[in-house]
């Protein structure tokens, strides 16, 4: 044997072994062959972590176990999407059967990758007509390309919280309804303190808490993708108007750098040091859950809620807002998918359960029946968000094969715009469209 062949043996063997092993790297695939009437223990992973929220979901599980004595639910709280993704990729006995996500942005990715099981066969088996149970907008954000791999488990609607005392002090009688009123009120409500601020009317900077650009952008009703699925941000006049308004809001209140410096002094969003709750902001974009936190914290000022303002030329759409929500699904690797469906069905479609849970954690119910239920919390601040959720102009983000990657790209671009680093908006948006399309293409098989 020629000597040169000898050193090749080991690498070649290793390469062959590596490729063989790589070919076997797919995680386990579950099945829906189980009998849901047989005793089983389901693993349920969710993201709720506040004591009140955890109690609410545990109460829901207790109600489910009472209705299904053969199914025991092992619940794990405060789990992030990243942890769930890792567990589902790995599969195995420790992986969850029923999963939830606090963001709808990733649903497209979960459906397209097969990570979450398609729920349509389960709905057909149990005679659940999804179109009659869930509003279409919510069904849209829980499916991708015809694959309904998730169902809405309460929704979130975004509106505006405002400090009534600050409004009175500034002589403003009602919350703004148009963007020009918004800009004028924000300016009036802003109080400087030397080179910094005592209070900002509305903090427009996109990195503040829930202020990600897509949320405010929803007030313009943009269309993110054309019929072919290509990004069309540069073609949509709404995009330019949105950035123009955001810029005007920044300039009216002292400029980006001053606002950004003030923002870095804010406390944690979910604590009582939240900038709106501590009086540093007079108007604030946030979700319906904030009202419960405001009540629990007994903030030292009178506050109210209203829909976010709309562009002056779209006054008829006032009442609209951005919608998202928690979604629930079945892990592709679950070996108890029929039993898991019983839990998903109970959590998402059982009217009493949905209403009780919505009241307990102050989230918007996600079924027609629950939205109409007389048992639903009558708190007027909460009702404002229910109206936003049901407004025909309210908007959800379209699902994408790579999840929220296009939202991230839009966010990155928006950070540059607000910092004054984009000098040619049209050119920048065209480049952004190209990038989103390239990312989408790369994610497709």
């Amino acid at each position, binding site marked *: 044997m020629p000597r040169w062949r000898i050193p090749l043996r080991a690498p070649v063997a290793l390469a062959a072994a590596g490729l063989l092993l790589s070919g076997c790297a797919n995680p386990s695939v579950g099945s829906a062959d189980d009998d849901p009437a047989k005793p089983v223990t389901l693993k349920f992973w969710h993201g709720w972590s506040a004591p009140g929220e955890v109690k609410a979901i545990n109460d829901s599980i207790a109600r489910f176990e009472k209705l299904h004595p053969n199914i025991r639910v092992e619940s794990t709280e405060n789990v992030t999407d990243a942890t769930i993704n890792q567990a589902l990729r790995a599969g195995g006995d420790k992986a969850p059967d029923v999963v939830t996500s606090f963001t709808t942005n990733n649903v497209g990715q979960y459906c397209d990758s097969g990570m979450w099981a398609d729920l349509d066969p389960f709905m057909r088996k149990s005679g659940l007509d999804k179109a009659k149970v869930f509003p279409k907008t919510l069904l849209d954000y829980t499916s991708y390309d015809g694959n309904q791999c998730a169902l809405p488990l309460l929704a979130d609607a975004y509106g505006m919280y405002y400090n009534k005392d600050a409004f009175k002090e500034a002589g403003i009688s009602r919350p703004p309804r148009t963007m020009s009123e918004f800009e004028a009120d924000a300016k009036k409500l802003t109080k400087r303190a030397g080179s910094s601020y005592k209070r900002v009317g509305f903090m427009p900077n996109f990195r503040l808490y829930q202020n990600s650009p897509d949320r405010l952008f929803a007030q313009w009703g943009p269309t993110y993708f054309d019929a072919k699925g290509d990004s069309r941000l540069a073609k949509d006049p709404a995009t330019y108007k949105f950035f123009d308004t955001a810029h005007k809001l920044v300039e009216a209140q002292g400029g980006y750098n001053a606002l950004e410096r003030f923002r870095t002094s804010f406390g944690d969003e979910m604590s009582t040091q939240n900038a709106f709750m501590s009086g540093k902001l007079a108007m604030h974009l946030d979700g319906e859950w904030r009202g419960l936190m405001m009540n629990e914290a007994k903030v030292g000022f009178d506050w109210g809620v209203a829909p976010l303002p709309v562009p002056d030329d779209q006054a008829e759409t006032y009442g609209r807002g951005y919608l998202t929500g928690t979604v629930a699904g079945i892990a592709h690797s679950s070996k108890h998918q029929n039993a898991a469906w019983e839990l998903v069905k109970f959590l998402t479609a059982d009217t009493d359960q949905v209403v009780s849970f919505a009241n307990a954690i102050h989230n918007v119910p996600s079924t027609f029946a629950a939205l109409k239920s007389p048992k639903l919390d009558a708190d007027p601040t909460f009702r404002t968000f229910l109206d936003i959720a049901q407004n025909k102009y309210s908007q959800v983000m379209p699902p994408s094969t790579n999840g929220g990657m296009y939202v991230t790209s839009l966010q990155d671009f928006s950070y540059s715009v607000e910092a004054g680093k984009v000098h040619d908006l049209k050119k920048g948006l065209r480049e952004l469209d190209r990038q989103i399309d390239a990312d989408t293409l*790369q994610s497709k098989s």
Partner: protein
Amino acid sequence: MALTLSNPARRRLRTLGFLSPWLIGFSVFFAYPLIATVYFSFMHYNQIQKPDFVGLRNWKYVFEQMPLFGPALWNTLWLVVVMVALRVVFGLSLGLLITKIKTGAGFFRTAFYLPYLAPPVAATVAFVFLLNPSTGPVNEVLAHLGITGPNWFNDAAWAKPSLVMLSLWGIGDLMVIFMAALLDVPREQYEAAELDGAGAWSKFRYVTWPSITPIVMFAVVTGVVQTMQYYTQALVAGKIASGVSIGPGSVIQPGYPDHSTLTVPQLVYSMGFQNFNTGAACVLSLVLFAIAMAVTMLLMRKRSGLLAAED
């Protein structure tokens, strides 16, 4: 039938037997992951469905269509050059100073070593708090001195230097290694140099430096390899400084502000585990591996040259 082996074959088997722990470790923890990474770099694979062969698509995507690749590579190389160089210089200077101190050396040794013991996440959180542009004590002290402090981790121009400052704060590990090397330099060589009329610089140049060169090279090579994998501190600093709320549904976008702290390992994580894009993540890993290998080989050759020169 008893198996009879010739003497050379028996010797080879015995050698392989002794080598087997290393061979198994090498195969499982190095060769297999490397081969799998090369394999997946040509595949479309989301870690759930079966991989599909896509040729050079992932490579083209990384090099031609991924706008964050350039900034991430630049940041990583910037950190490798600046952070490693400053850490070596600072660690060596501290070691030299403390070995020269007659009284209180123990106190200074402890004081400079202690920050190294702080867990990286806790140390980073504390550092971001200290350097908060609005409420941090550092800028408050600077304001008292009439100086307007920078925005530190909130300014793209200052974010990387702030990370370097953080790494210099935890210099204790290198300082201890350098102190051991410095205390190992034979005293008589210094005495001989003094008799020849050498000053402090000449003593360092002709006595200390040749003796500690292998340790310096060790510090540089390990520093380069560690910094190529820089991840946690940059991610935590960006996350805390940005003030963006992190909840179970939120996805952490590394690189705040303006991708100035984005490193290649962070991009690998984002691609592979947030965007389910294993192919592109593997390409990035291979690029990083190639650079790390090239730099390490260059340094090792340099080291052999230095050692040969010493001889």
